[in-house]
């Protein structure tokens, strides 16, 4: 392992890896707290936004630099209760486990045009300006929550990736769900994922819980005291302790963290979700 963990610079030779695990169960069709939008719609908007930002960030004069691999998986069950664990990417990238950020940039499913309002420099009046919004993932909400099967699959995918990239910054897994696992205790599976290592450190597993209620959200708790319920405590135990670069970055961003803080958000709304996603990436060297 590196002398200073989580310090490997991200480059073509030492690519980063981000793996998103998206709850696609039926309850994701419910509205997200403080919003009239469905959780699944807000979630894919955030994921598509993240992919867009990463592609833009990696882009240069000649195209998109191949600095990272990305996977976006969804999990749910069919009508018989069998787990469906599959890539959520659509279009030319459909069915692919991990794709390079270069392919992400070149192959959105479609580019929607939405109205954006910006202030006119001279008059200050708000004017409508069309903006391009690429889409890679569409909303799905159906069936149950086979969280353990998803984490097991994540372990397989990351084991293979790490074998090919042993020196890289450790993969970052971002798991977003709105409820409990329905196929067993997810903690041992989460521990197995967190137990995977590159020479630069352990895989990081970050968990974000989306809520239908408008209850207070909280991020990066350092202990189980004060957590509202057993679901929160399970997600806490599943989540990685934030390594030093992430801890320092979060503090710089204004989060009131204590040492031992874990990569977890609970009762997240859209704002919290986007902050959570951004924090997971900006702390990695070379991605700032």
């Amino acid at each position, binding site marked *: 392992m*590196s*002398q*200073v963990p989580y*310090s490997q*610079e991200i*480059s*073509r*030779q030492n690519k980063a890896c981000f793996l998103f695990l998206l709850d696609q169960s039926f309850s994701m069709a419910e509205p997200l707290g403080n919003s009239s939008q469905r959780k699944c719609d807000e979630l894919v908007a955030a994921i598509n936004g993240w992919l*867009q930002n990463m*592609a*833009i*960030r990696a*882009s*240069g*004069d*000649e*195209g*998109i*630099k191949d600095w990272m691999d990305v996977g976006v998986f969804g999990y749910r069950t069919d009508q018989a209760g069998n787990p469906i664990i599959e890539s959520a990417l659509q279009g030319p990238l459909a069915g692919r486990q991990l794709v390079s950020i270069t392919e992400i*940039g*070149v192959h*959105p499913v479609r*580019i929607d045009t939405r109205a954006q309002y910006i202030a006119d*420099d001279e008059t200050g009046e708000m004017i409508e300006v069309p903006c*391009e919004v*690429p889409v890679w993932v569409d909303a799905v909400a159906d069936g149950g929550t086979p969280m353990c099967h998803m984490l097991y699959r994540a372990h397989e995918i990351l084991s293979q990736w790490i074998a090919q990239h042993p020196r890289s910054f450790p993969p970052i897994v971002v798991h977003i769900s709105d409820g409990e696992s329905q196929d067993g205790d997810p903690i041992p599976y989460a521990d197995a994922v967190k137990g995977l290592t590159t020479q630069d450190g352990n895989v990081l597993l970050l968990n974000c819980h989306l809520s239908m209620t408008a209850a207070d959200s909280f991020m990066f708790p350092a202990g189980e005291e004060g957590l509202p319920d057993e679901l929160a405590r399970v997600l806490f135990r599943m989540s990685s302790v934030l390594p030093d670069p992430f801890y320092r970055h979060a503090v710089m961003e204004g989060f009131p963290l204590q040492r031992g803080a874990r990569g977890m958000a609970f009762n997240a709304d859209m704002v919290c979700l986007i902050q959570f996603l951004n924090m997971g990436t900006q702390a990695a060297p*070379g991605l700032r």
Partner: protein
Amino acid sequence: MPFVPRIFRLARDAEHPEEYQDAHGLDAAGGIAAIADGVTSSIFARPWAEILTGATIADPPDPDHQEAFRRWLQLRRQAWSQRIDTGSLAWFQRAKLPLGAFSTLLWVQVLPLAEIRPGAFGAQRLRCFAIGDSCLFHARHGEVLRTFPIQKAEELEADPLVLGSVDLGRDQLLQFRALDELCYADDLLVLCTDAIAAWALRLGESGHPPAWEDYWDKSQQEWQEEIARLRDQGQMRYDDATLMLLRVT
């Protein structure tokens, strides 16, 4: 000729030199050299860095006079905009274009003294202007006399001030740092971009500063191999690396 130069360059990714975003310019006979570090995350940063260094050599800006500097900068922005073929851009490039490119800029001028000064026999005037974190190390007889504008490695952890290729309404925040000192024949002026500066400052703070004189006789390949080794060992950040050595004559 006020100085004799040696230039070393290595892209962040040695296998993709086309992605190198630093730039340099010099007029050895005129005694002026410039270095710029294009911000990798911005778009078309290399042309912007090249425009800045080229214009600095041909027509050095006057940071002491704000209005004159703004006019100078506006001309450079127009030049950058004219170099971009917007019709051929992909969606991810179109998204970045409104913010434009960003770059640091540092330049040195070695000039005759306007008047003789007691105790300064043989001296020449060294002027240096900088915005951002490209760095000057002024060395004499193997010892670093001063570093400018950065004094400590930790200063390089923050995002630097940069010049933008698009007017985002923030030009009033631009502040050049200025240095006005004496230099003598055989002094070594070392201009470098921030990855090298950070490495050198850390070594200096540990009591083992780099032996800048040793680089004078290195070949480009020897130097690039050393940089690659330092990167692999984690002693130097993966970033474009540009080193200009100017031997004062």
